[in-house]
Every structure is written in C-alpha cells, then in structure tokens.
C-alpha cells in the first residue's frame, strides 16, 4: 500500500498540537504561505509522480489523498494517525448514540433542503443538491453551492469527533491529470469554506477523483454538470 501521507511529519508535529498531517499542513495563525511538502513514500515499491501543490489557504488537520487506488485504506490509515495524535475521538460505547444523534440532526437540519444524505451504519454520505455544480473548469463556489454548504456546516457543527473527507469530481472533458487537479481544488474549496465560514473543527481529508467516478454519462451538458460535484463523507473517530 502506498501512502502519500507524511506520517512522520504528522507524528512529529503531533506533540506540538499540529496534528494535521500532510501535504498541506497547518495552522491557521501563521501567515498563509504556501507550503510545499514532499510526498513521503511509505511503501517504497510504489512510486508516485510528484504533484503540483495547490496554492491555497492552509487548512488545519487536513491531508490530501493522492492514491486513488485504495482511498478507504488511506483514510483508515489517516484515522489511525489522528487517533495516535490524540485528536478528539469517541469512546466505543458512544458510537451508536453519536451516529443516531448525527442522523437525527441531519434530518432536522437538511430535511427538505435538497442536500441529500444517507447513513451507512457508522458512516454518512452527504451530496450537495443537483443544481449546485461547478462551472466547467471552475473551482469557484457559486451562491447556490455556498447556501448548501451553509446548511451542511450548521448541521455538522459540534460533531467534531469525525474524519470529514471531501471528494471532488469533474466531468470527462479535458486531460485526466488536469481534471484530477481541478477535482482536488474543488474539494479543497469546499473544505476551506466549511472550515473558514463555519469553523468546522473536524479533521479533513481531500480526495480528487477527477472524472473517474461519474454519476452520469458525459454526453450532454446537463450530465456533465452533474458530474462536476463534491461529496462529503463523515466517518466517526472511535478510540
């Protein structure tokens, strides 16, 4: 399994309460200089292309998942790293209560808003409304997108003992690498909006899927628009 997570750095910073690991590491307070972190190859047998860093505001407690072969495995590793770094987490006995209450909260706040969510046991998927999409090639959050994210931000406020993974997607127009970068930037924009505007304190992972996981064919403009989307996944952190 290959990792692009710089676990070493994360653990080193853990003691300094800079628990977030990653490629974009950080603190909110230091001046927003772009920090370029070399990817650490955890498993040497797999090598990865060096990536162009995203010029972005620094996100605390965030990583960028680069290996799309096994996203779940990478997220599991990250969750473990977060637990090792003493990020807020749930006692095992509280997991059921926490998920029930989270589900009820999402029903209360998101019911009828167009923000779609579904619970899969101890995991929740959120999908922004179909109408809120990115312009082709754009990473800008339009008004509709912001409104939907406002709802999500309020709904999940307080539910900090989770790993919030933000999954960006593009349509199939254009080169794969470009699209992947665009999808990362879309996810990052969403994550940044939630953190900046709603002070979401959860740990965050950014995943740029590019065009690899479409929800529609790419034959019509409408279908391509549906593919240009961001989905959010909430996994509780259990000690």
């Amino acid at each position: 399994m290959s990792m692009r997570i710089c676990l070493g750095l994360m653990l080193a910073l853990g003691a300094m309460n800079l628990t977030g690991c990653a490629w974009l590491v950080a603190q909110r307070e230091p001046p927003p200089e772009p920090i370029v972190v070399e990817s650490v190859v955890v498993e040497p047998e797999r090598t990865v292309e060096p990536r162009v860093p995203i010029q972005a505001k620094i996100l605390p407690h965030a990583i960028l998942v680069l290996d799309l072969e096994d996203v779940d495995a990478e997220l599991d590793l990250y969750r473990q790293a977060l637990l090792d770094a003493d990020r807020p987490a749930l006692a095992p006995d509280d997991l059921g209560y926490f998920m029930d209450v989270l589900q009820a909260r999402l029903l209360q706040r998101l019911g009828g808003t167009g923000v779609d969510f579904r619970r899969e046991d101890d995991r929740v998927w959120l999908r922004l409304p179909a109408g809120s999409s990115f312009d082709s090639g754009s990473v800008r959050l339009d008004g509709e997108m912001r409104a939907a994210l406002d709802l999500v931000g309020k709904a999940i406020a307080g539910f900090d003992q989770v790993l919030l993974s933000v999954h960006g997607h593009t349509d199939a127009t254009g080169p794969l690498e470009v699209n992947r970068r665009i999808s990362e930037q879309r996810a990052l924009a969403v994550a940044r909006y939630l953190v900046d505007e709603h002070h979401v304190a959860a740990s965050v992972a950014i995943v740029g899927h590019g065009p690899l996981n479409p929800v529609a064919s790419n034959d019509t403009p409408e279908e391509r628009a549906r593919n240009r989307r961001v989905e959010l996944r909430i996994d509780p952190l259990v000690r």
Partner: protein
Amino acid sequence: MLGFTLVAVAGVLLVSVSVAWLLWRMSLAAEEARAGELARALGLRTEQILVDARATLERLDGLTVERCSAEHLVAMQDAAIARPHIRTIGHWRAAERLCGLGFVGPPGLRPARADRIYESGVIAWWPGPQTEVGGVRLFLMRYGDHDIAIDPGMLLETGPVRGAHAELWLEGLRLASTGENLDLPQPESLALGLTLDHANGRIVSRYSHASVLPIDIVAVEPIGRFWGRYLPAASIAAVLGLALIVGWVVALLRYSRRQMSPPTQLREALAANRIQVHYQPVVDLRTGACVGAEALARWEVEPGEWISPEVFIPMAERSGLIARITLSVLSTVLRDMGDMLRDSREFCVNLNLGSEDLLGNHFAQALSKRLEAAGVAPQRLKLEITERVLLNDDDTRARIVDLRRRGHAVIIDDFGTGYSSLSYLEKLELDALKIDKSFVDGIGTGAVTGGVIGHIIEMADSLGLGMVAEGIERAEQVDWLLQRDVRYGQGHFFGRPLSAEDFHAFVRAKGIAVAPRRTSGVEVLSV
C-alpha cells in the same frame, strides 16, 4: 297440559338463559366502556405528555440565549419544574452533555441504539436497560441539542389504571408497565376490547388510541374481580328479571287455561288426576245407618272453582271422555274406600256409568281386573245407569247382563225422567230403581207428581226391584217413603256429597250397617 307445561318451562329456561347472556354481555359492555374510558384518558394523557415534551425540546432548541448560561439553565429549569414526569433536561454537543439539570448525573444518558429516529429530527429511546437510572427505566427524547427524560411509570401510577396489571405501549414498543414480568400478551396478539383468557382465569383488555401517536393499553384483571364489580348489580337485575318473567308466564298460563276449550281442559284435568270424587251417603231409612255411598265426580278447575257434573258429564259424553272419567272415578273409589269395601259385607259404592262404558266389553274387563287387584268383591260395587243409556240398543243390554253376571247390582238412575218405553223393565233383569229427586220433592205437597211416585213404587214392587230415593231433604219425606216400604235413600237430609276424608268422619259418627240385607236386625259397626 303436559306439553304446554314443557313449552312453558322451555320458554322460561330460554328466557333465563337469554337474561343471563344479556346480563353477561351488559357486564362486559359496562367493563369495556369503563376500561375503554380509562384507556382513552390514559392515551390522551400519554399523548399530551409526549407532544408537550416535543414542543418543549423545540422551544429550547430555538432559544437564542448563550448555551449553558444562567438564562439557558433557567429556561430548562422552568420547563422541568412545571412537568413532574420530567426527570432531567440536558443540553448536548453531539454526544457530550454540556449542561443540564434533573435527577440524571452529568454524563447523561447515551443509549447505544435509538428506537425511533423521526423525519422531523426527533429521536427517541424507549425505556430499557440502557435508559435505566436507579432502577427506573426512562423514556428519552432528543431534538437538536436538548434531551428530556420522562418517567413513564408516572403515567400508570397517577393514571386511571392504578392497581391494575397494565402496560402502556407506544408505537408498538412497551413504554410503561405497572410491574416487571407481568407476562402480558403483546397488543398485536389481542383483539380490541375485552378478551376472556379462560386458561389463566383473567380478562385481558386492549385499547388503542391513535390521534397523533399510536398508543395501546393492555390490562389484565382476574375474572373474580370483574365479577366482584358486576355480580351484585347483575344478580339483582337477574332476580328482578326472572321474577317478572315467571309472573308473566304464570299469568299467561292461567289466561291460556281459561282460554282452552272445555274438552281440552277436561283432558288436562284427567291427565293431572284433578277429577276428584265425592261421596254422598246412602242410608237405610229405617235405621239411618249408612249402607253405602254414591261416588260423584267432581272437577275442581281452580282451587275453589268447581264445575258441576251436570255440565261436564254431558260434555264428557259428547267428547268421548266418559270412559276415562269412569275409570278415573273407579280408581279413586278403590283408593279412598278400599278398606271399607273389603271389610264390610254391606257397604256398597255406587258408580255412575255412561253410555260409552257399555259400548264394548272393555269397561267390564277393566272393572273386574281392578276390583280383583284391589281385593274388592263385585257385589260391593253397584253400577248406576241412566234410562237414556238403556235406549241405545241390544248390545248395551247385553253388556248389562254381562255386568250383572259378574256380580254387580245394576241400578236405573233418574228413573222416570227420561223418555222410556218401560218395556226394558221386562226385557232386562235389573236390581233397583232410583227415584228421582223431582218425585221425592213432590211428597207431601199435593202436587201432581205426588201421585206418580206412588205408581213408580208400586211398579218397582211388582217387578221385584229395590228402590233408592234421591234428594230427601225433610223428615216427612222419610216417613212417607217408609210407609211405602222404600228402604234406602240419600239426600241432604242425611248428608251432602262429602270428600273421602269427610265421608270417613261421617261414617265414624253415624256408623255403618254390617248386617246382610233383608234381615230384621241391623248391627251397627263403628269403624
């Protein structure tokens, strides 16, 4: 009569069963109404508490005050203190209770699995081990960042089902119970209303209430307690009802008996042995000693209400019942007078025959058989036949001959009143004549009949027939008859027709003649 009685009894039974059934159904209906009303009240109260809890949570969630500030705590305190069933109110961030008040400590209740998560965002945990605090299982409801714990036992304790074994179910899940391990059936397994659980000797009731939330109440009660509640009233109602029914049936029976045709009534009377026999003494005019009695049928329709033989004997003749009456009278005579008839060689009983008795030899055979069975000599039973009967035909005469041959004396009754050719007096061998009362009445009055009786006596004498005078009411009649050698008589002067008991008393007082007939001396034997 028997059939009618059976029908009446069956009717009474049917009505009694119907009344019992009706009272049972009414008791059940009353219990259903009572329990249903209790359940409705309980359901309404439960619903009201839950709706109110939900509204309270929404209000707290909508407050704009700073969380866990003094103001916030006061708001929670005010909500709790006004609702005694609320045991705690808490404010939460996700799974962490930040502040709150009540009887549940700071960590708060965090059951692992919600029983209901509603579309509205309300989440509820039914009472169970995971909501148990100090042995009390709480009902927990959360909306947004606040939760409320309710003690559902308060519903049943203060509610209308106090003292019963009951369970309260909300949305198909048990919310409250008056005790542990009650072994009550689940609501879905029960029909609405009352169910009789004979196996366990109890009445199980289920009531549902569902205006906002589906609520079921299941309660059990021993059948004994159920009866304790309804038996007194039901018993009184049953007794009153049955008394009314019996009164009604009796009235109906009396009415219908009056409405019955006389022959039918007579038949019923015969079947019920209600034809009685009275005995009019026959005396020796010379001594005044009782030598016998004429058995007279009496029909007592109702106590104290008698029907005259002059009315019912002709009716019995017409409806072919006379043979039965004769046999009935015979049986009674043998029962009443058996001892005297066996013991005395003089004492005789006169039995009246009807024309039907002489139609075949059936009567003669039955008579002999019964006399034999009773050990009474045929000579002790004399047979009285009216002139009208003699008119009939030669067969009748043959029967009379047969009866005389069997040893019975045959007496012509009411002689001289019916149309009679008198020729039969020569053709038939007879034993005696009865001089009708109408002739005896004329004695000493100088009436025309006074002459007739003299001729009758002469004729009887010349034919060698004995004589019995009927309807003697005065001593001068006795003297007159004695002068003309009429030896026997009966009438009010000697004694009215008496019941068997009275007749025995009469005989004890007067004595009976025991000497054989036609001897000069008469011994009087006191019985």
